[in-house]
């Protein structure tokens, strides 16, 4: 079975919610839609305080090449447009909408029937993806229309659909593959035509045999698309590791997947592309796994973006008493929330409620030079070395030690027997190295 050779760790899978089919979470009373739902330039609002909006209506416009449109997830009135704390607690510009009813714009096809528009040209597909505000749903939220616009001089040879979902606890992609398999394949077809490539591979980890079986069966009707089961190892879902496992090629350090002819899109993105083109539906809701060992109910909810995290926790039975951390994303790369008021964004793949004893950091000890971190690093770096450089604030040496290659997967900190906060220091190193690089350019 294919896998990536270098590094990797094996956290417990804890896919508690893999059997829960997708449920619609009721629309909340107030939504907060931040203008930065994506990587790149934040969108610019096209509505004002007091305006009435309908579900699916454009409320903020893309403000650059690497930027994306944002559409209202609800119908109601714009209450205010001002800085509101996001999941980091830092106030960022957001459009707050008071919800009334759930009136959608007429152009959206709300039925479930499978539609297969096949008369669209490549440019039309890319334009529609851009118009509908589709961004990477794996969590990185990179604007998708930029990813399918292959830069001059580079050629796309293969499309890889990321159905790996290697993070423990998260099951939203798994449920999407089981319940919306046909739609995903049609979406993948659109992406294939947009690049253009004639082959697509869907990578799925072995711990989802039902999804592998289901998509394999369906893909027989889609020439050029095949399913590749992969060994269960974290971080197989990282795009560089996925490309290595499926094609055997390594994305060069400092380069992009297109440099080896590959383009990777998340399974949720393929579904969003289907909805954007076949159903005229902009991206304003997504599947979010709400899970935790002590939660009364583990579920996969379809949530409107802007819904406060507290609504999801309430729907799952409330916050358990033994909660230590609430994570947006998965336990390996997700962000620990300081409070439950922050809203769900286009990139929120899951809310994981971790018990205090599950997520507690033990006492930090001296590095015993066991090199487990270096063995675990999928990018071949030396985390113990990067941490001591970061602690001594030797940023230039961190740049030489290729700190920027770090994908922040957390395998190093996960595996350290001395409980050293390796990734904390590597992150601060990356921030400072980027600051130095920016200063050098100017």
């Amino acid at each position: 079975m294919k896998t990536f050779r270098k590094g990797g760790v094996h956290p417990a899978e804890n896919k508690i919610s893999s059997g829960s089919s997708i449920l619609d979470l009721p629309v909340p009373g107030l939504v907060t839609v931040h203008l930065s739902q994506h990587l790149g330039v934040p969108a610019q609002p096209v509505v004002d305080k007091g305006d009435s909006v309908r579900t699916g209506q454009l409320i903020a416009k893309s403000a650059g090449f690497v930027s994306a449109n944002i559409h209202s997830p609800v119908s109601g009135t714009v209450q205010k447009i001002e800085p509101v704390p996001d999941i980091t607690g830092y106030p960022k510009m957001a459009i707050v909408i008071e919800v009334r009813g759930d009136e959608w714009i007429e152009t959206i096809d709300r039925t479930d029937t499978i539609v297969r528009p096949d008369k669209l040209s490549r440019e039309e597909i890319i334009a529609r993806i851009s118009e509908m505000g589709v961004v990477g749903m794996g969590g990185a939220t990179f604007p998708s229309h930029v990813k399918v616009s292959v830069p001059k001089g580079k050629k796309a040879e293969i499309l890889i659909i990321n159905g790996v979902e290697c993070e423990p606890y998260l099951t939203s992609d798994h449920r999407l593959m089981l319940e919306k398999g046909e739609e995903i394949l049609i979406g993948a077809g659109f992406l294939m035509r947009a690049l253009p490539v004639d082959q697509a591979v869907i990578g799925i980890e072995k711990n989802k045999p039902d999804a592998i079986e289901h998509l394999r069966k369906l893909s027989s009707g889609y020439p050029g698309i095949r399913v590749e089961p992969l060994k269960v190892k974290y971080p197989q879902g990282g795009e560089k590791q996925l490309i290595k496992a499926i094609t055997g090629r390594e994305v060069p350090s400092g380069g992009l997947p297109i440099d080896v002819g590959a383009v990777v899109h998340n399974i949720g993105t393929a579904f969003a592309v289907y909805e954007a083109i076949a159903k005229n539906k902009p991206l304003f809701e997504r599947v979010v796994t709400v899970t935790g060992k002590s939660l009364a109910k583990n579920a996969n909810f379809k949530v409107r973006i802007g819904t406060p995290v507290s609504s999801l926790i309430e729907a799952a039975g409330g916050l358990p008493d033994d909660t230590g951390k609430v994570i947006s994303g998965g336990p390996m790369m997700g962000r620990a929330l300081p409070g439950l008021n922050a809203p769900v964004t286009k990139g929120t793949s899951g809310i994981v409620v971790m018990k205090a004893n599950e997520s507690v950091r033990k006492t930090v000890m001296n590095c015993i030079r066991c090199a487990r971190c270096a063995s675990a690093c999928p990018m071949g770096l030396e985390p113990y070395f990067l941490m001591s450089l970061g602690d001594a604030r030797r940023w230039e040496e961190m740049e030489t030690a290729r700190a920027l290659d770090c994908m922040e997967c957390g395998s190093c900190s996960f595996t350290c027997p001395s409980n050293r906060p390796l990734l904390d220091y590597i992150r601060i190193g990356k921030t400072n190295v980027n600051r130095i690089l920016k200063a050098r350019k100017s």
Partner: protein
Amino acid sequence: MSATNLLTVSHSPHEYTSESVQKIMYRVLIAMLPAFAVSLIFFGLGALIVTAVAVVSCMLFEYLIARFLLKIKPSLWDGSAAVTGVLLAFNVPSNLPVWMIVVGSLVAIGVAKMSFGGLGKNPFNPALAGRVFLLISFPAQMTSWPKAVESRFAYLDATTGATPLGILKEGLKNGQPMSDLMKDLPEYSQMFLGNMSGSLGEISALALLIGGLYLIWKKVITWHIPVSILGTVVLFTGLLWLINPDQYTDPLFHLLAGGIMLGAIFMATDMVTSPMTPAGQIIFGIGIGFITCLIRIFGAYPEGVSFAILIMNALVPLIDKYVKPKRFGEVRKNG
């Protein structure tokens, strides 16, 4: 969310393995049990006293130095001091006086470990540093080896004899031919089990091998260092033996005699003082094997593993500086 139940915020990842320094150290102690059992069988009382004194004094010195000299929080139960104590005991004869063991522990823990900053900061293997200090300071007592089995119920007054390597060195110096000397040396099968003179832990290749396999199974060590050390020894001595079997013994003898098995499996593999990359570890192992053979065959001492490991320990920072792991997507600049 009540006031008493605040959410915790930290950088990712938010879950961790159950691995700990303590677990690693205790696995090493378990791996040393077969060798300890053999030492009790062959050296009895002496082995028990020496090991107990070494372990207790190492742990005591670590606690006292951390608490009163360095004024840091002592982490006594992480197991590293106990491991150093057992390894120090394994490297000395079973009739070593108590006060010498204590001095050795003080050097091992105080000088070779704590003075550099404690766990993880020492460049040299502490047990070996203690052992070499004792060897150079008290050469007579450190080279009087109790005879196996005969010395079981004695301690300081145990009957002594020479180790196989000692017999070899002396005999070759006196001009005796190899065929004569081979009669004085124990049978290889006995050497494999441990029935020979030597330090507490080095005698039984079998017990050490069992311990080594356990460590590899539990992923505490990898094969790179032991195999490269032993492989180099076999190549070096094998080559010489093929050229002149009258002057040099065969490689199997060299593997079974002396402390090379102990050194390859337990001493050189100490993670704090060995290189961080597999390629670096192989270079490290080759160096140790090479220097050991040089000292054994051409040097003044009959055994050279301790010195070889300490010398290569000094080169580890250099090895780590130039031997880096292969990065993912490494772009090799041409020209």
